[in-house]
């Protein structure tokens, strides 16, 4: 338990740190100027997409994003390694079941839109993936033990698809002489969409599988019995 | 790389490589293990003879490995190192034969012989060290390689002895390390140079240099068993006899004593050490150790313990020789490095034989062993007489030169120490000899293992003490012939004082 003196001391120290932080950030914000904004905005037209954030995520700093998809995969693998999943939820009542049957297709449809919109407006692979994952979670809440996910082999393949496509595109571009993750002129747009599609699928599947927990088994149905 | 630059390294590697290979052998592969051991020992002997010849001719051998800018590992040969290398190589060969016989059918022999070889490699490395850093490196490796040998038996006693041994030597190692680095921080890399390197050190660091000398002495004194740092030596007696032989005659205590000689002559320079009172201090410590060791030896009933305290006393003759200013005493000290080795290894071999054949561990049980084991007892007698300093055994030569040197330097109190210690030596060795030869044989020995052959004990156990005893006798009888330890020690003294 925290001793009494610490209860007093910790807030005081933290407030002092806070004061320094506010001061430092104010100074920094005042002197900061345009930072990378102008450089980035200027190069957006060359990036293959018109949404500046997507340009940064999938072109200027694509390597960050690659590692980020890998982080997501790591989390899923870690969850799988922790043992079997919790038992599935009770099957939903007919009314709820009916609503789920409506909502899930809608979510999947929005996934597609979000993915496409990312190129020029707010949106992109992560937002789309999150929607796809939500579809899976909805199914799971409705009592679907597999959350609509495929069997082990395909599930494993889908969950690594994002990292696979991302890295493979990078390495192939490197081998072709452009450099790792360096899109050749004119192909940037399509390559980005290709990567984003794969990433969306992976992210959606990963989120849903992470929600379920437990290592995938080939006979998914057998789990609901336990 | 030409051969001259490789020879010192080759001498170290000639036992290190077989040692490393031996670890990997199966327990049952006696033959292969013996072949590896003997090949290493013989190759080393050949290389060392080559080197002796070369050094005598004024040839220089140096292996230099740069670890980092300004930090070199240097193995090089001068007269002093060759003396020590020759001693350890010769005695290693003999001890290996003895150990093969002694450990017949005992467990964990691959481990034993592996570390045994590493131990000799480290000793040879110490002998050939050309810089203080190199010396520290091999000095610590020696600690590491001997620890498993002391602990080898695995009894609680052995574990305790090993622990005490380790505590002492690690502490000593730390002191030596600090001293060596301190010196290097003050004057740059310390290469062993005849005549020393501190002769013209600036006045203002002299005080610090004196302190460093005592730090180094503290580190070296542990292995050399200077009082009050000798506590580990009697405890380490739990080790098997060949290990005790090696520890006492060749490796550990000699490494300490050799280090003291190196530091006095080749780092500080005898002139510097003399004029700053370091020699006098060393002489006092050595004298105290000599007397104390002898007194303690008197009171021991355990034969190995008595020999151990005798070692404490005898090894300090070397330090004593180094502490008297003048070439004659130097000859006495340096030659004792070899003589004490020959005599003490003989005594330990014999003690091992008594224990192995008859189960005799104590002085009080030694009545009449001379009749039962005449060969071993002959060797023992020669070694003991040498220790007392009775001519013509080698020990006499050492003491003669020490005394002569002391008289020449006007240090009469050293003469008194020598006389007193010789009397004490006689007091603790002569009763043993008396019991051995003149008391009746008891009806039953403590634990007799009859030997099937016609010898009193296996040949591998009998010949080594006879050989080393003969060598000790020869070193005294033919002291003036070329290539004897004495002649070589004179060469060393000449070169140290030569300029």
């Amino acid at each position: 338990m925290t001793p009494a003196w610490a209860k007093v001391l910790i807030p005081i120290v933290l407030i002092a740190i806070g004061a320094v932080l506010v001061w430092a950030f104010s100074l920094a914000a005042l002197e900061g100027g345009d930072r990378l904004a102008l450089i980035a905005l200027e190069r957006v037209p060359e990036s293959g997409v018109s949404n500046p954030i997507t340009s940064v995520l999938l072109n200027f700093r694509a390597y960050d994003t690659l590692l980020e998809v890998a982080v997501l995969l790591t989390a899923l693998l870690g969850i799988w390694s922790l043992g079997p999943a919790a038992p599935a939820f009770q099957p939903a009542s007919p009314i709820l079941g009916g609503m789920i049957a409506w909502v899930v297709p809608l979510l999947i449809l929005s996934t597609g839109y979000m993915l496409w919109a990312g190129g020029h407006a707010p949106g992109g692979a992560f937002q789309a993936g999150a929607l796809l994952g939500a579809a899976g979670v909805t199914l799971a809440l409705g009592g679907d033990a597999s959350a609509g996910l495929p069997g082990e082999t395909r599930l494993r393949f889908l969950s690594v698809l994002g990292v696979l496509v991302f890295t493979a595109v990078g390495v192939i571009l490197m081998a072709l002489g452009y450099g790792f993750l360096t899109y050749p002129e004119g192909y940037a747009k399509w390559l980005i969409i290709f990567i984003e599609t794969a990433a969306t699928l992976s992210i959606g599947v990963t989120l849903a599988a992470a929600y379920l927990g437990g290592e995938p088994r080939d006979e998914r149905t057998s789990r609901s019995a336990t | 790389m030409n051969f001259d630059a490789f020879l010192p390294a080759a001498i170290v590697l000639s036992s290190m490589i077989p040692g490393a290979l031996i670890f990997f052998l199966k327990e049952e592969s006696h033959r292969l293990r013996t072949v590896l051991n003997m090949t290493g020992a013989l190759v080393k002997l050949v290389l060392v003879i080559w080197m002796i010849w070369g050094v005598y001719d004024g040839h220089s051998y140096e292996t230099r490995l740069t670890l980092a800018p300004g930090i070199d590992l240097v193995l090089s040969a001068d007269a002093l190192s060759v003396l020590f290398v020759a001693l350890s190589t010769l005695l290693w060969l003999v001890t290996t034969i003895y150990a093969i016989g002694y450990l017949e059918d005992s467990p964990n022999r691959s481990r034993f012989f592996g570390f045994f070889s590493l131990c000799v490699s480290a000793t040879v490395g110490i002998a050939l060290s050309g810089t203080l850093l190199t010396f520290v490196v091999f000095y610590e490796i020696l600690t590491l390689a001997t620890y498993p040998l002391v602990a080898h038996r695995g009894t609680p006693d052995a574990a305790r002895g090993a622990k005490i041994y380790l505590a002492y030597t690690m502490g000593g190692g730390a002191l030596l390390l600090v001293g060596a680095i301190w010196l290097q921080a003050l004057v740059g890399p310390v290469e062993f140079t005849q005549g020393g390197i501190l002769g013209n050190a600036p006045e203002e660091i002299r005080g610090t240099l004196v302190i460093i000398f005592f730090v180094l002495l503290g580190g070296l004194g542990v292995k050399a068993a200077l009082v009050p740092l000798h506590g580990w030596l009697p405890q380490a007696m739990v080790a098997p006899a060949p290990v005790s032989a090696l520890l006492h005659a060749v490796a550990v205590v000699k490494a300490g004593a050799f280090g003291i000689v190196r530091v006095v002559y080749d780092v500080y320079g005898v002139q510097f050490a003399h004029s700053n009172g370091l020699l006098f201090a060393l002489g006092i410590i050595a004298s105290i150790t000599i007397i104390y060791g002898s007194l303690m030896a008197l009171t021991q009933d355990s034969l190995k313990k008595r020999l151990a305290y005798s070692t404490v006393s005898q090894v300090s003759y070397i330090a004593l020789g180094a502490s008297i200013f003048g070439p004659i005493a130097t000859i006495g000290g340096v030659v004792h490095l070899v003589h004490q080795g020959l005599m003490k290894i003989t005594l330990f071999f014999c003690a091992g034989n008594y224990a192995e054949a008859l189960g005799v561990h104590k002085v009080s049980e030694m009545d009449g062993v001379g009749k039962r084991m005449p060969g071993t007892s002959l060797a023992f007698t020669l070694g003991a007489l040498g220790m007392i300093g009775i001519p013509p055994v080698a020990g006499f030569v050492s003491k003669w030169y020490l005394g002569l040197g002391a008289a020449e330097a006007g240090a009469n109190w050293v003469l008194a120490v020598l006389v007193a210690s010789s009397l004490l030596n006689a007091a603790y060795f002569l009763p043993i000899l008396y019991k051995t030869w003149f008391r009746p044989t008891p009806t039953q020995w403590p634990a007799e293992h009859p030997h099937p052959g016609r010898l009193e004990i296996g040949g591998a156990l009998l010949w080594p003490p006879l050989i080393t005893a003969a060598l000790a006798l020869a070193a005294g009888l033919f002291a003036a012939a070329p290539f004897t330890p004495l002649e070589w020690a004179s060469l060393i003294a000449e070169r140290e004082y030569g300029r």
Partner: protein
Amino acid sequence: MITQFLYGGSGILLFLLGTWSFIVHPPLIRKLIAINVMGAGVFHTLVALAYRGLTAPADPVPHALVLTGIVVAVSATALALAFGQRLDRDHGSSADDD
């Protein structure tokens, strides 16, 4: 400028609140929540930095960093929750019994 200051300042406040909560509360699940509050604070601050006035387009780099950061934080949270669940299941007690 005031807007930016308010956003940034509240980000720092959240960061500190999270830190405080992490240090003070032993239950691991509360520590996890605390970290998410801290994360929200950092992301808040970064978003505030991107603001360049009403007329100029925002700096896209901090926005992208925040997006990446959020995904990383979500992944870490998911893994931590799975750890907690595993501890729960093993013992039936909550994950904070130490």
